[in-house]
């Protein structure tokens, strides 16, 4: 079980959180202006790195706020947590 430091509530068990996938994905402001390839890339493609990953977590069973975590996907070490 991961131990995640919620920026508002402190260190809690992973089971209090929900995973939200890759962080910093910005929804295109004008989807109509995109080609099918660009839209598909936004919708489906993921970096999926082996190593450092910036990801979103939500403290669903706590303060219910979203934040970002930088985690090493090989050894699960959490390197940083930021809003």
């Amino acid at each position, binding site marked *: 079980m991961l131990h995640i430091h919620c920026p508002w509530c402190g260190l809690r068990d992973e089971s209090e959180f929900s995973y939200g996938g890759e962080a910093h994905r910005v929804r295109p402001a004008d989807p109509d202006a995109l080609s099918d390839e660009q839209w*598909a890339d936004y919708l489906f493609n993921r970096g999926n790195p082996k190593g450092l990953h910036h990801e979103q977590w939500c403290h669903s069973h706590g303060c219910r706020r979203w934040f970002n975590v930088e985690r090493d*996907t*090989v050894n699960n070490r959490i390197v940083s947590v930021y809003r």
Partner: protein
Amino acid sequence: MQKYSIFSLARNALSHHQHWSRAWRSPAPRPQYDVIIVGGGGHGLATAYYLAKEHNLSNIAVLEKNGLGSGNTGRNTTIVRSNYLWDESALLYEQSLKLWEGLSQELNYNQMFSRRGVLNLGHNLHDMRAIHRRVNANQLNGIDAEVVDAQWIKQFVPILNTDNARYPVLGASWQPRGGVARHDAVAWGLARAADALGVDIIQNCEVTGIRRKDGQVIGVETTQGYIKSKKVAVVVAGHASMLADMAGLRLPIASHPLQALVSEPLKPILHTVVMSNAVHGYISQSDKGELVIGAGIDAYTGYSQRGSFHVIEGNIAAIVELFPLFSRVRMLRQWAGTVDICPDACPIISKTPLKGLYFNCGWGTGGFKATLGSGWTFAHTVAKDEPHPLNAPFNLERFTTGQLIDEHGAAGVAH
């Protein structure tokens, strides 16, 4: 290839089993191949075997970074079935099931393919409606499937607590031709047969780069040096995104841990496979007597080949609810694989924008059963540089065209 039989067993017993020939050679890589297959799991080995057998190619190498089957092939709970909902997937998985049927004889290697049948439980009205729909679809596709009710299940698997309060069992889909097979035997049997047809199987050889020129693949960098090839077929499951990265491509794949565990060996107690999508659990008993139990994926992505404890805790809680008798059984081992999850719970078996580069991935939590059909159709794609009718729908372009094949119902977390 040294033939395995009761006679060869007896003959070798006389010399204390010291003189068996190796099941496959371990050659040094040649400077160049007609086809390089990256990944020595079941799917990569099946691709090599069918390329050699059906397409008469022999200058083929399988490059595996660790040992054969050390990825998901050797980590899975080995459930084999074909009762998927949509025509595209049902036909592919059914082709695979048919290939399983004669494989032990064909490879002269016991696959321990045991058709003990597979039950997919329904716990509520919605589950049952989905099961009815799927069984009807299966029957239209000529796949053996029927809906059975709680009473039938109670009689067939008396130890299953059908009227427990938490997950009452209302019925199930039943596929009698489904079952389990021995994962290692699949990898080893295919490797031995492919080797006999001239395929070079090279272990401890990690691909670290894909060289290309003018939109065409020309070779791969490996930990054992550069190897030339105009065709590179990538079959690396959870590592697909890594290999795509080497070729400058992006994939709709997320790699997650998927956990399983086995118990201490018991006397025969469970003679079929029981699965439940709703509780994220599936269970069968191995020939050694261990209960083999699989869970749902961990929420986060990762390559650690381990998962979080609360996932198997929830999984076991559900299994114990369904089989109260197992509450005092001790678990022996627990592990995880890195599964390649695709947005529509279906694989990608496809050409890519790069000429000579082919990808076979996205099997996620349920590709063991498809090992043969996957290799069989992929070999066609690689040999002929075109899709096989059975894998054509599983192209990479579907994420752009929107023609997804949504198998979350039949594939979902369970297998």
